[in-house]
């Protein structure tokens, strides 16, 4: 940020403030969209939660989550399992609110959950997606007849990248001993 500002003062000083405000406006628009999306998903999630389905799901996934994330708090496991299942279903927008909630619960116990938080971020930002719908839509609207061809390379490359990244994080954990 500092370096870019320094360069800009010399190149185009009149652009700085207008860009900052323009960007902030974009984020306001984005947040209104997100508000709507999260409201729907958090509503659905609450039904899952209150009906007891959430506990069943987290019980089902907790052996995997316990051994990978090394956490044993019930709430943490529950929201991590929501996050992972939404990710696998390709519901990125539903995964985000549960991920944020999981991080909030982990914050309360920062010493124990250091590694779990890093792992959650890595899994969410390598982006496993079973059906790349947006991209296929773009290709089809541009006149492609074989847009579905990209599904297989997308899945393979994102799954492999996620596996590599998670292993890298485990190596990092060994070295740093967190």
């Amino acid at each position: 940020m500092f370096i870019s500002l320094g360069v800009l003062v010399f190149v185009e000083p009149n652009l700085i403030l207008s860009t900052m405000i323009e960007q902030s406006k974009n984020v306001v628009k984005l947040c209104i969209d997100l508000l709507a999306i999260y409201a729907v998903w958090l509503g659905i999630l609450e039904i899952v939660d209150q009906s007891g389905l959430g506990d069943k799901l987290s019980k089902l996934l907790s052996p995997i989550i316990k051994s990978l994330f090394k956490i044993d708090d019930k709430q943490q496991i529950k929201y991590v399992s929501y996050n992972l299942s939404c990710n696998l279903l390709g519901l990125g927008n539903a995964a985000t609110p549960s991920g944020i909630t999981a991080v909030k619960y982990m914050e309360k116990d920062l010493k124990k959950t250091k590694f779990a938080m890093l792992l959650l971020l890595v899994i969410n930002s390598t982006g496993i997606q079973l059906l790349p719908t947006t991209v296929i839509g773009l290709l089809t609207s541009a006149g492609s007849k074989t847009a579905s061809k990209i599904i297989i390379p997308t899945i393979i490359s994102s799954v492999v990248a996620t596996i590599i990244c998670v292993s890298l994080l485990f190596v990092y954990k060994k070295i740093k001993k967190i």
Partner: protein
Amino acid sequence: MSVFIIPILLILLIIYGVYKKINVYSAFCQGAKKSFDLIKGIFPYIVAIMICIALFRISGLGMLLVKLLSPLFCLLGIPVEVCELVLLKPFTGSGSISLLQDIIAKYGADSYISYCACTIMGSSETVFYVSSVYFAGSKQKIAPAIIISLLGGVISSVLGCFICRFI
């Protein structure tokens, strides 16, 4: 087929909720209410990150980085035409979508270049955005995770472009 999966799951969920004798309507409202707090919490952090990214781009430093790293990516087998996309994707979702549209328009929807670009787009995430949303206000140091995720983006891009040669 996939169009039906989510609605069917929702119907099943509501039936299950009624069967468990919970008030589905009020449960939904309670959940939806949390949305405001969530957005309130993450808003300032997204603004800050997005301003940083925009300044980085318009200052020309972004293009400089692309020029510096492109030869390296070419060595790894990523076509030179999509190098910019690989570098842009971690920063901005909307920006990389418009770049993707340009690439598709320029090289044709069914070309190797477009397939590569789409694979890159689909298999990587907007790392900086995701990390700013997830860790809004967190004291946790997340630099190692960001570096590993960025590396993951490059790995999936290289792999995606490689597989695209065979389809």
